[in-house]
């Protein structure tokens, strides 16, 4: 492998680690500088490796360059702080910066990333910015990739990230790991961010397939980190504080969903409906991994929405249409909706209802949902009316087509419409 192939790959895996570790040294409010130094290290690598060839250990090489740049920066800042701005909070009394070792040990990298996760999930940062920041800082995505995932342009993302960083400064958010009580309180937000990341990959309209897949696996990686790779100091009595039943349920849920990543899009990037998916493409490793974490999530006395969704996702990994499958799915949706209403859950519940109670009843239920502004409402009705009243099926699918947001969606709907027309 030459440097032109290796560098983008390393960027994806190492950029975030460098930024996290540097931020831990500089303070979260200096995140822009940490990013600059990290980017600079990669730029230097591109130049040097292009001319002199790859070093024996490219990752260590990057760490060393970043660490040296960081030390230089800290030295300069110390001079600035001491001579020019003694009133600044982070003053020279912090100690001699020559002593500061910028350390890239696996433990410190994990620790820094964990802190980063909690800092990004701070309530002062708006959710959309949290996802953007996570993509950039925790997953090492490029600005153009984030823009693609959000279906917007680079300027918008840059602005959003800039504002998020302003917020970090204004709110004085630090990278100190919160105390046990605060960790517990903020873990919910961390899990939400991870789930948003996953959904961004799983459902996002962007048609860069490998990018979307990578997003899903990044989310899984972060969640697994919460469960397994926790630094000693954030454990209480040896217990991993972030290894909660809820986190395990979320991980199970994401593994179950991710197991179908290869089956749900065809070679042209078009959506393959669940019923038509090739079970051979379902990833059985991910299904069993999901099962493992679902079992581990079954403790404690709190039934979270991740538990319910993981339960539904589990049944969806069972391709065969059994009565038990759909009865269970319907029950789980009913409980889920009772806890937290969402239009998507209401629509999916109605689909499960049709599998248990038949299409006629489900059509009545669907019509009562009042989701006329939701395109999936028409997709559902199109599905339910098919072979009950094909004319209505057709008009609903056409309504859905008119509201479709991506080419892949339009193609998939058009195919179903054509199929119906052919039958008539």
């Amino acid at each position, binding site marked *: 492998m030459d440097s032109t192939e290796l560098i983008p790959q390393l960027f994806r895996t190492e950029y975030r680690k460098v930024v996290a570790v540097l931020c831990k040294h500089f303070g979260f409010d200096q995140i822009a500088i940490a990013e600059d130094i990290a980017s600079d290290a990669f730029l230097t690598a591109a130049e040097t490796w292009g001319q002199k060839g790859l070093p024996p250990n490219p990752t260590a090489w990057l760490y060393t360059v970043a660490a040296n740049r960081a030390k230089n920066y800290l030295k300069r800042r110390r001079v600035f702080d001491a001579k020019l701005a003694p009133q600044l909070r982070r003053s020279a009394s912090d100690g001699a910066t020559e002593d500061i070792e910028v350390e890239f040990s696996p433990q410190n990298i994990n620790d820094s990333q964990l802190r980063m996760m909690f800092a990004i999930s701070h309530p002062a940062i708006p959710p959309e910015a949290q996802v953007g920041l996570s993509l950039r800082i925790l997953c090492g995505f490029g600005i153009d990739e984030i823009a693609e995932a959000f279906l917007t342009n680079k300027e918008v993302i840059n602005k959003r990230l800039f504002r998020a960083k302003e917020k970090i400064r204004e709110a004085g958010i630090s990278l100190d790991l919160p105390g046990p009580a605060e960790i517990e309180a903020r873990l919910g937000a961390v899990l939400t961010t991870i789930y948003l990341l996953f959904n961004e990959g799983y459902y996002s309209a962007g048609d860069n397939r490998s990018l979307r897949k990578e997003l899903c696996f990044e989310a899984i990686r972060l969640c697994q980190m919460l469960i397994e790779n926790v630094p000693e100091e954030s454990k209480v009595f040896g217990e991993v504080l972030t290894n909660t039943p809820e986190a395990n349920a979320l991980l199970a849920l994401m593994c179950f969903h991710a197991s179908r990543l290869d089956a749900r899009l065809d070679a042209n990037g078009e959506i393959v409906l669940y019923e038509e998916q090739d079970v051979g493409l379902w990833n059985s490793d991910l299904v069993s991994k999901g099962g493992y974490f679902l079992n581990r999530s079954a403790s404690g006395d709190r039934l979270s929405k991740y538990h319910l969704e993981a339960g539904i996702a589990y049944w969806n990994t069972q391709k065969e249409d059994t009565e038990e499958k759909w009865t269970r799915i319907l029950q789980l949706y*009913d409980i889920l*909706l*009772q806890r937290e*209403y969402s239009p998507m859950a*209401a629509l999916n*519940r*109605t689909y499960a209802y049709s599998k248990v*109670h038949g299409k006629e009843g489900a059509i009545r*239920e669907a019509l*009562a*949902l*009042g989701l006329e502004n939701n395109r999936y409402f028409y997709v559902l009705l199109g599905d339910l009316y098919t072979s009950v009243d094909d004319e209505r099926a057709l008009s609903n699918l056409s309504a859905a087509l008119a509201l479709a947001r991506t080419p892949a969606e339009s193609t998939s709907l058009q195919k179903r419409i054509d199929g119906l027309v052919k039958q008539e």
Partner: protein
Amino acid sequence: MDEYIVLMRLDLITKEKQPTPDQLKVYMEYYQDWVNGIIAQDKFVGGTGLDPKGKVIRPGGVITDGPFAEIKESLAGFIIIRAASLEEAVEMAKGNPILNGEGNSVEVRRINGQH
């Protein structure tokens, strides 16, 4: 959207009218299906069944074992729903499966939020 209370009245007294445990299980499933449909419309606010036992207090400190001796229909439970109008609330309440039983009734009233 206003909130409406749906009061469900059943005959809880007449012995021969009480369901067998098996029947009750089926009835409860019907009822739960109906409630779940309302939840799926995001129009469920709350509600509960009521224990058939209770006391009625009248002026002068007269306490009796519920109104059952006087009327056949006792309050069996209630749910509170969201609806745009009384008509819509009535439309939703019509689906209540207790209406399959003769003599049962459902009463819909808007909650006016004042004591």
